[in-house]
C-alpha cells in the first residue's frame, strides 16, 4: 500500500542524452512496481519496443480487415448499381461483366486501408487527439521533441507516483536531469471552456451559413453561369439576330447550290406557260390540301371566295384580282401557275413558299372556287 505521507506526482521523468543509455535504462526499469514505465524519444529508436516489452502493433490486422471490407463494399455496390438496380449493356458486354469493376474495387480498398492505417493509428491506437495531456505541460517535452531521450514513471490508476523512490531509481539509471510532474487538477477547466467556445463558434458558423445561403438563393435563384442554359442566344421572328454580322439568323444557301427536289423554272411568259398541264388528279385529298394552302397563302388578299375583297384592301393600295372573272375562269392552269411562280402586278412570287405539287393543288382548289361562284340553274339536281 502507498504511504499517505509520501509526496505523490503524476510522473517522474528522467532525461538521457544518448539513445543507448535510454535503451539500457528502459530494459532495467521494465516491470517497475513504482508506476507505468514510458519512454519518450524525438524519433523512433530501434529496439526500444523490445526493451520496454511492448506488444506488437495490431495495426496490420486492422488494415487487412478494413481493406477486405473496402474491396467487398466497392464491388458489391458497383454490382448492385450496374447489374441489379439499373442494368445497362455497355460495349455489348453483359451487365454482370464484373471485370470492369476491378479498378474501382482496388481504389476503394486502398482508401479504406489507408484511412484505417493513418487515422486508426492516430485516433484508436495512440488515443489522439489529446491536446491537454499532462505530459505536454512538462518542461521535458521541449527537450524530447528536440534531442533528448526520456524515461518516465507515470501514475497508473490515478494513485500517483512516489516521488522520492522514483527519483532515486531514475537517477541511479544514469539520467542527467529529472523532472517531477505534479498531479494535474482533477477537472481541467481549459478543455471545457475551449470545447464550449469551439462548439459555439461552430453553431454560429452554421447559422450564418444557413441564413446567407437562404438569402442568396432567394435573391438570385439562378446566378448567370449556373442558370442551366435557360438564357441563351436565339432567333426571334421578324427581328434581327446577333448570330451573324448581316443580322440574319440563318446563312443563305451557297451560290450555285440546288435544293433537293428543286427543278429550275425556265418559262418566261404566260403564253409559254399556257401549255403546262396540271399533273395532279382531282381527288378529295388534293382539294383539301389546296384548301389549306389557299387559306394560308392566298386568302389574305384574294378573299374567302376568291373575289379579291378582303379587309386588307382598304389598308393596302393595290387591288387584288377578282379570281372569279371570266378571263381567269377560262385561263389555262399553266397561266395561273406562271402567276404563282413569278408574281403578277403587286403580287410577289410564291415559288419559295409553295412546292411544285402544292401549287397545282392550290390551282385545283381555285378551279373549285370559281365553279362554286358561277352556279347555274342546271346545277340543281
Amino acid at each position, binding site marked *: 500500500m502507498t504511504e499517505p505521507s509520501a509526496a505523490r506526482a503524476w510522473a517522474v521523468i528522467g532525461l538521457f542524452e544518448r539513445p543507448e543509455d535510454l535503451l539500457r535504462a528502459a530494459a532495467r526499469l521494465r516491470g517497475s512496481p513504482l508506476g507505468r514505465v514510458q519512454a519518450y524519444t524525438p524519433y523512433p529508436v530501434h529496439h526500444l519496443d523490445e526493451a520496454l516489452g511492448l506488444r506488437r*502493433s495490431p495495426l496490420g490486422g486492422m488494415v487487412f480487415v478494413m481493406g477486405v471490407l473496402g474491396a467487398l463494399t466497392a464491388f458489391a455496390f458497383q454490382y448492385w448499381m450496374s447489374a441489379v438496380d439499373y442494368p445497362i449493356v455497355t460495349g455489348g458486354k453483359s451487365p454482370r461483366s464484373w471485370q470492369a469493376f476491378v*479498378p474501382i474495387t482496388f481504389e476503394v480498398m486502398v482508401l479504406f486501408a489507408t484511412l484505417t492505417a493513418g487515422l486508426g493509428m*492516430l485516433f484508436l491506437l495512440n488515443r489522439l487527439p489529446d491536446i491537454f495531456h499532462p505530459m505536454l505541460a512538462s518542461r521535458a517535452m521541449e527537450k524530447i521533441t528536440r534531442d533528448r531521450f526520456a524515461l518516465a514513471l507515470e501514475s497508473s490508476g490515478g494513485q500517483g507516483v512516489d516521488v522520492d523512490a522514483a527519483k532515486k531509481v531514475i537517477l541511479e539509471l544514469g539520467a542527467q536531469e529529472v523532472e517531477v510532474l505534479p498531479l494535474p487538477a482533477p477537472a481541467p477547466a481549459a478543455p471545457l471552456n475551449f470545447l464550449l467556445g469551439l462548439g459555439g463558434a461552430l453553431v454560429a458558423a452554421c447559422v450564418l451559413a444557413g441564413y446567407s445561403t437562404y438569402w442568396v438563393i432567394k435573391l438570385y435563384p439562378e446566378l448567370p453561369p449556373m442558370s442551366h442554359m435557360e438564357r441563351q442566344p436565339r432567333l426571334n421572328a421578324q427581328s434581327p439576330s446577333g448570330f451573324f454580322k448581316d443580322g440574319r439568323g440563318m446563312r443563305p444557301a451557297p451560290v450555285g447550290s440546288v435544293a433537293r427536289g428543286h427543278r429550275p423554272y425556265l418559262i418566261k411568259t404566260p403564253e409559254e406557260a399556257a401549255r403546262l398541264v396540271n399533273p395532279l388528279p382531282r381527288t378529295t385529298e388534293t382539294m383539301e390540301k389546296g384548301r389549306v394552302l389557299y387559306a394560308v397563302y392566298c386568302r389574305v388578299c384574294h378573299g374567302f371566295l376568291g373575289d379579291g375583297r378582303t379587309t386588307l384592301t382598304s389598308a393596302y393600295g393595290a387591288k387584288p384580282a377578282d379570281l372569279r372573272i371570266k378571263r381567269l375562269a377560262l385561263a389555262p392552269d399553266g397561266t395561273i401557275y406562271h402567276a404563282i411562280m413569278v408574281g403578277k402586278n403587286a403580287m410577289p412570287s410564291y415559288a419559295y413558299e409553295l412546292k411544285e405539287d402544292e401549287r397545282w393543288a392550290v390551282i385545283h382548289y381555285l378551279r373549285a372556287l370559281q365553279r362554286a361562284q358561277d352556279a347555274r340553274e342546271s346545277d340543281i339536281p
Partner: protein
Amino acid sequence: MAEALLPEGLREPALTDGAITLGELDDRVLSVPETRPPAKWFAAFALTSAISAVGLACIAYTLYTGIGAWGNNSPVFWAFDIINFVFWVGIGHAGTLISAILFLFRKRWRNSIARYAEAMTIFAVICAAIFPLIHVGRPWLAFWLFPYPNQRALWPNFRSPLLWDVFAVNTYFIVSLLFWFLGMVPDIASMRDRAKDPRLKFAYTALSVGWRGSAEHWQHYEKAYLLLAGLATGLVLSVHSVVSFDFAVSVVPGWHMTIFPPYFVTGAIFAGFAMVMMVLIVVRETMDLKHLITMYHLEVMNKVILGTSCLMGYAYMMEGFTAWYSQNQFIHHAFKQYLWGAYGWAGWTVLVCNVLIPQLFWSSRLRRSYPSMIFVAAAVTIGMWFERFVIIVMSLQQDYLPSSWRLYQPTLIDFGILLGSFGIFFSLVLLFARVLPVIATTEVKAILPGYQPAHGGDHDRA
C-alpha cells in the same frame, strides 16, 4: 546490416555533409517558419500569385462563357484540359515514388527530400484536379460523378474509365494528404515545443493532435508508415494506369495499346523527378540546406531521370513497333502524323527532350553541375508536356473519318490557364517552404550517424 557487407565503392555515402547534431537539425529546418521571409521570397511570391491570378481570370472567363473559349473543336474534344490534367497528375507521382516506393526499398537518401516531394504531390494533384473540373463545363454539377441516390434514379457508368479516374484521383489525393500530414505530425510537435507565442503554441498543439513521441506512439506510427507506404505504392501505380485507361480503353488509333499503363507510369515518374529536381535546387540554394540535401541526393535523382528516360525511349520504340506490327492502316496513319503531320515538330520535340537530352547524365560531371541539371529538368518538363499533346491532340485530329478531320489550334485562354496552373503550383510550393517544415526532421534524425543504437542485438540490455 547488409550495407556493411558491401565493398567500399558500393556503400551509400554519408547523407549529410559533415557531422550534424539533432538540435542543429531542428535549428536549421524548424527555424524557417519562425522567421520573417526575406524580400526575395515576397518578390517571388508576388510573381507567382500574379501568374495564378491570370490563370484564375481565364478560368472565370471560361466558366462564364463556356468551353467555347478554348480551342477544342469537333474531332479534338480533348485538348489542353486533358493534357494539363495528365501532366500534373504525373508530376505528383514522383513525390509518392520518393516517399513510398523508395521507403519500401530502404533507400535512406529519400528521407531528406521526401517531405518536399510529398508536398509537391499534393500541390500537383490540386493543379491536376482543376482541369477535369473545368473540362466538365459546369463544375458545380461535378458531384454527379459520385454514386449517390438521386431523384433521377440513375447511377454513374462504372464501366467507364473516366469514372475509374474519378475514384483513382480522389483516392490518390486523400491518401497523399494523409501520408503527408502523418509524416508532419511529429515535426509539428517539435515546432510546438519551440514556439514562444502561446497562441502559436496552441495552434501547433492542435495541428500536431497532441503528439508526445512516446515509445508506443512511435511503434504504431512506424507500423502505420510502413503500411501506408505499401498501400501508396500500389495506389500510385494504379492511378496513372487508370489515367492511361482513359485512352487505352477507347478505340482511337494511337490510344488503343496495351503498353499504355506502364508507359504512362514511367513517364509520370520521369516528369515528376524533373520537377522535384528544379524545385530542390532552388530550395537547397536559397534556404541554406546544402548540408542536408547534398550533391549525392541530386546525383541519385539524376540517375533516376536517366533511367526513366531510357525506359521512355524504349516505350516510344515499342509504340512504333506495335503500330508497324499491327498491319493496321489507321494506326500507321496515326504514327506518321506524330512525326510528319501538321504538328510533327511536337513529336520531334518529345524525342529530343525526353530521350536525347537526358543522355547527358551518363557523364558524372554533368550529373553534378547545376546548369546541366536545370537544362535537362526543363527539357524533360517541356518534353513530357508535349508528349501528352502528341498523344491526345494528334491522335484525335485525324481518326477514322477523313471528312471530320480538323486541325487543332489553342486559344490564348488555353495558354492562360496552363500558365496559371504553374503559378498556383509554385505559389503553394513557396508558401509551404515558409510555413511548414520542409525537411522531415524526425526521419532525418533517425538516420543521422551515431543516433541509432548499434544494430544486431549485441548491445547491452541488462
